[in-house]
């Protein structure tokens, strides 16, 4: 009993500690300018929606949300499109130097962004990708692929190979086996990878700032960062915009959570 109380207390403390800054932002976003600047601070906001209006209409927040949805969405789809067949092949086929390939992939994902920023910019400049949303999608896909392949490969490896034998006997080729038998079983892995890619692409700041210089293409992190004026720090608008930026991600993660259930492959084989 004592153990359980300690455990519960620990969990509450950890969750509280992580949620507190976010909670403060949510509270701040509903305050008025006077409430924000008040000393001592006001805890409970008056419920003003002024900052939301300002963020959405004066700062074109909707455009940023739309850009982020397009960029993060296409990054996730593209990365999965490449990662799924690659991971399946790496998990199952006998490829010479397979371990080497996986190791190199891991190294690639560890490259510091700063080190590749220059070359990426030059490359995109050559192919005309600067100031296009697809210009950031390309490096995002490249940077998230290694992790996605690693996650998916380990999921595919866990699936019983007898299922593939059964599928072959039943008349499936490699692609049908992948799509009709293996993919449905790897759903938890796919959603795990998808969420990680989505969060990365949604939050990425550095490349977005480098590649997208026009407000019409900029994503949420860059857009919000540029709220800052020369002499002013619009805390209220920033708070409101951050809440708007975070909500879609929370919704998506919560929706996907029910797909990330383990034991989906239970019943395939004994055990």
């Amino acid at each position, binding site marked *: 009993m004592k153990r359980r109380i300690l455990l519960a207390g620990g969990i509450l403390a950890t969750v509280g500690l992580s949620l507190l800054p976010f909670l403060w932002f949510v509270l701040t976003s509903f305050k008025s300018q006077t409430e924000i600047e008040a000393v001592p601070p006001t805890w409970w906001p008056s419920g003003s929606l002024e900052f939301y209006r300002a963020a959405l209409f004066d700062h074109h927040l909707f455009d940023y949300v739309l850009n982020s949805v397009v960029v993060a969405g296409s990054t996730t789809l593209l990365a999965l499109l490449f990662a799924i067949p690659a991971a399946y092949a790496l998990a199952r086929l006998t490829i010479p130097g397979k371990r080497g390939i996986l190791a190199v992939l891991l190294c690639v994902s560890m490259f510091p962004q700063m080190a590749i920023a220059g070359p990426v910019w030059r490359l995109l400049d050559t192919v005309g990708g600067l100031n296009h949303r697809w210009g950031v999608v390309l490096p995002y896909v490249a940077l998230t692929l290694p992790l996605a392949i690693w996650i998916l490969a380990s999921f595919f490896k866990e699936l*019983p190979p007898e*299922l593939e*034998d*059964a599928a072959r*006997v*039943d008349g499936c*080729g490699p692609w*049908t086996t992948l799509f009709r038998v293996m993919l449905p079983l790897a759903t938890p892995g796919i959603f795990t990878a998808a969420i990680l890619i989505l969060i990365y692409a949604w939050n990425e700041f550095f490349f977005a700032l480098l590649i997208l210089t026009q407000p019409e293409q900029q994503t949420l992190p860059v857009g919000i960062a540029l709220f800052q004026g020369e002499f002013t720090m619009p805390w209220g608008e920033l708070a409101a915009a951050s809440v708007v930026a975070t909500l879609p991600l929370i919704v998506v993660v919560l929706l996907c959570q029910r797909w990330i259930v383990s034991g989906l492959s239970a*019943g395939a084989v*004994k055990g």
Partner: protein
Amino acid sequence: MAELELCNISKSFRDLTVLRDISLQVPNGSFTILLGPSGCGKSTLLRIIAGLDTQTTGQVLIDGNEVDHLPPAARDIAMVFQQYALYPHLSVRENLAFALKMRRVARHVIDDRIAEAAQLLEIQPLLDRKPKDLSGGQRQRVAMGRAIVRKPKLFLFDEPLSNLDAQLRTSMRIELKKLQQRLQATMIYVTHDQVEAMTLGDRIVVIESGRIRQADEPQRTYAAPADPFVASFIGTPPMNLWEGTLTTGDGESVFRSHDLILPLPATLLPPHPPQKSRVTLGIRPEDIALQEKPGAIQVEGLVELVEDLGADLLLHCRVGDLRMVVRTARQGDRIQDQPMRLFFPFDKLHLFIENRRYDPPNAPT
């Protein structure tokens, strides 16, 4: 329904040879068992027949046609796996329909076949469940159903009962036998369980170290094992086998193995028995008699341990420094630690010369 022929199949993984020169004919409608200890290559052979693995050399022929270049799906075979391998995301009905859908069989035909197989296997109430909601025995039935709906030329079973508990295994074994008789299908069944092999098959192919040791009817495999390995592998408890030397002189032959010295009549031996050659002599535990009978060799043994099996007793005896097991009916007297006269009937002795069975020309077997 089909016949299968294997011609000189060999299989190596790098420098490891798993199968050596396997040739086998499986006639139409036969229930053939591939029996052997684990790691003997029997499952690999089954996978080669299925097309899941490729042999290093040799040919697989189904109905006289070479199928080596064909993928598993094109060979018209169905396979039941040891781990069932049901598709967990599909219901039982969809599992049964899967292979037929892949072959673009018409919907109403699929429905008919599923209904037929479900009735045969008594799994109608399970059709809309997912595999995870089934017990081991039920999953096994579904796995068989998935093979049956295909109406394939060949059924391949890879140790399908080894994951079930003992009781269920016995009842599924009986059902499987009935099923085979009803379907009149050609079935090839891999197992390491000699009881399954004896009861199910109409032919047993004993494989060891990648070689066929004997391919025969179950009764003959039991009564006339081709070599000491088959003799020791089939039968519980296994046959008593002694390695020794055969000495012939003055018209009498004597088998010696440690303290066991047995004079053997000339009728049991080849016309010109090899001098001082290494031979193996065997006798099944149930063939050793405790009562004197004509045409038997008598030895003096000591009963070291008695195992009571309920119906029978197993006597673990010692003759000098040799050990042997005798299976006999229950008896009242206390016999443990008692000396005992053992009789080896001549016609029950198995003689192996150079690891091959020797049968005298006029032997009844």
